[in-house]
């Protein structure tokens, strides 16, 4: 029998706000335990939450970008559960009226095809704190620095059929949210976390099998492998005549297997009710229109435009849009007059090389587009040869030093003084009669040798085109 894997995703994304969702504590990563906390995010009696306006804005933008209908009259609900990572003993979330519903996302697949999946809903909620178990004391330490960090949870329909589709969707989701500027979506830092709901059924069947939920998937690789493992495990169970138990399973990356989580963690009766501490939210048509107008051009649209408008290859356009900061950088260079293909070439080779060397991200780069453009202009007008320009970039990149100043200070400008070049060429021809004879005898290689001698005399700074031309002309005049 052939089996079909059916997957739905719940993705939690940390929003890139400066403060927490319901209080003004910083969301900055790290910090000594419980130093980014206040009575609201530690759940002190009587403390009252107040919604961060940026969270609402980001959640609406994310909803729009994922094709959702925005719930213009929405509110928060209280999800009750007793676990010390949430000191209030409940999480403020949204159940009945999530901010976004019924979306659609279309994304490219590795095999060249496309897939469209449905978004069931998108809602706002608060993150929980961090628990650290002390094995010696048999106690658990609670650090609430992350407690109250704003999240959106994006729930898809069960529309995926493979791990590859899941990863392709997550890549698209990450790209979309990064371009919107609502999250940095760093999986390794936990700002994008994914739970995978998976069931299997005989191919062609319309019924859904019993699903399991997998947690602790913190890389694309882990997701692909966990999907393969769990689908196989369920198929084998069914083939052995056993049934799949609906449960939450934890992916163990070291063992490449999923394990059931303890049943008491599985008790799911959250007794939701409308959150009485927060008044409802109304999003007017004008607010919605304003936010819609702020939607940036997304990566896929940019990729198409770069190919059509600037003549970049698909690969180059993909590289330029791999991060929004890089695309912004490229576009600024073009706006400053750089030839698009040249700018793209320099960014892909030199700028990315330097960023990698320095361990920096494009968004935090000191080297500004106007500096790169100046460098490209100097190459274009022949004042710098390419290799020298690369050396200049190397030198000024980290501190965004002035290109002209550096070139002047280090005497790097190419020699374009025709008088000087003519004199050098004449001298080289006089000094190397044998090479001149070889060249006349048909040995083209001798020309290269003569060019090399001229460049040597010019300390490598002669403009190659000018040296070549002068040499040809002088040879003819001989």
């Amino acid at each position, binding site marked *: 029998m052939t089996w079909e894997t059916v997957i739905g995703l719940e993705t939690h994304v940390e929003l890139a706000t400066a403060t927490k969702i319901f209080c003004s504590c910083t969301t900055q990563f790290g910090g*000594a335990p419980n130093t980014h906390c206040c009575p609201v995010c530690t759940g002190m009696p009587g403390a009252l939450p*107040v919604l961060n306006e940026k969270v609402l804005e980001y959640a609406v933008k994310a909803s729009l970008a994922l094709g959702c209908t925005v719930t213009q009259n929405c509110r928060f609900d209280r999800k009750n559960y007793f676990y010390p990572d949430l000191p209030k003993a409940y999480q403020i979330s949204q159940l009945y009226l999530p901010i976004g519903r019924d979306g659609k996302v279309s994304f490219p697949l590795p095999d060249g095809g496309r897939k469209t999946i449905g978004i069931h809903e998108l809602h706002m909620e608060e993150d929980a704190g961090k628990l650290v178990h002390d094995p010696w004391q048999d*106690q*658990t330490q609670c*650090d609430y620095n992350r407690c109250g960090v704003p999240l959106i949870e994006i729930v898809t329909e069960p529309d995926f059929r493979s791990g590859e589709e899941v990863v392709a969707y997550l890549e698209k989701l990450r790209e979309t949210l990064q371009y919107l500027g609502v999250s940095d979506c760093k999986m390794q830092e936990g700002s994008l976390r994914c739970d995978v709901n998976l069931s299997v059924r005989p191919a062609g069947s319309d019924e859904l099998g019993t699903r399991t939920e997998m947690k602790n998937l913190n890389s694309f690789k882990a997701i692909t492998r966990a999907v393969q493992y769990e689908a196989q495990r369920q198929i084998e169970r069914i083939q052995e005549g056993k049934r799949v138990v609906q449960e939450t399973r934890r992916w163990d990356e070291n063992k490449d297997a999923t394990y059931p989580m303890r049943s008491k963690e599985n008790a799911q009766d959250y007794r939701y009710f409308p959150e009485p501490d*927060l008044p409802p939210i109304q999003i007017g048509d004008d607010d919605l229109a304003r936010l819609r107008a702020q939607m940036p051009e997304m990566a896929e649209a940019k990729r198409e435009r770069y190919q059509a408008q600037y003549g970049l290859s698909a690969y180059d356009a993909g590289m330029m849009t791999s991060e929004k900061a890089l695309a912004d950088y490229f576009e600024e260079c073009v706006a400053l007059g750089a030839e698009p293909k040249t700018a793209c070439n320099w960014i892909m080779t030199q700028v990315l090389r330097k960023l990698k060397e320095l361990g920096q991200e494009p968004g935090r780069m000191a080297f500004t587009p106007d500096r790169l453009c100046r460098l490209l202009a100097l190459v274009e007008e022949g004042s710098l040869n390419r290799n020298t320009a690369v050396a200049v970039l190397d030198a000024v990149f980290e501190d965004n030093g002035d290109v002209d100043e550096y070139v002047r200070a280090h005497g790097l400008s190419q020699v374009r003084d025709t008088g000087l070049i003519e004199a050098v060429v004449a001298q080289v021809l006089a000094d190397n009669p044998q090479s001149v004879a070889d060249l006349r005898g048909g040995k083209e290689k001798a020309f290269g040798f003569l060019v090399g001698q001229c460049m040597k005399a010019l300390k490598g700074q002669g403009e190659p085109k000018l040296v070549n031309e002068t040499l040809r002309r002088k040879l003819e005049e001989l």
Partner: protein
Amino acid sequence: MKITEELVDYISILSRLKLEPEERAAMAGELEKIVSYMDTLAQVDTQGVEPMSHVLSAVNVTRPDTVEPSFDREALLRGAPARDSETFLVPKAVE
């Protein structure tokens, strides 16, 4: 609604509460009183009344995304039943 001792057991599991047998019976009685008050409320004719999710008429109460200094950690930890120098301590809760 009848609050059985089984229901009390279930709620105490959800609430991580350990109840003695005599407490269970007492709790069942108290909960039933509370819930029966809801039954009284349910008798009110609400035909044509728009459900509301909040008692105040306020909407859109938000604040700007501006960082304010956090609280003094010592002040936060002071009231905790168990603590160390940096964290709140609870009985083992992680696998």
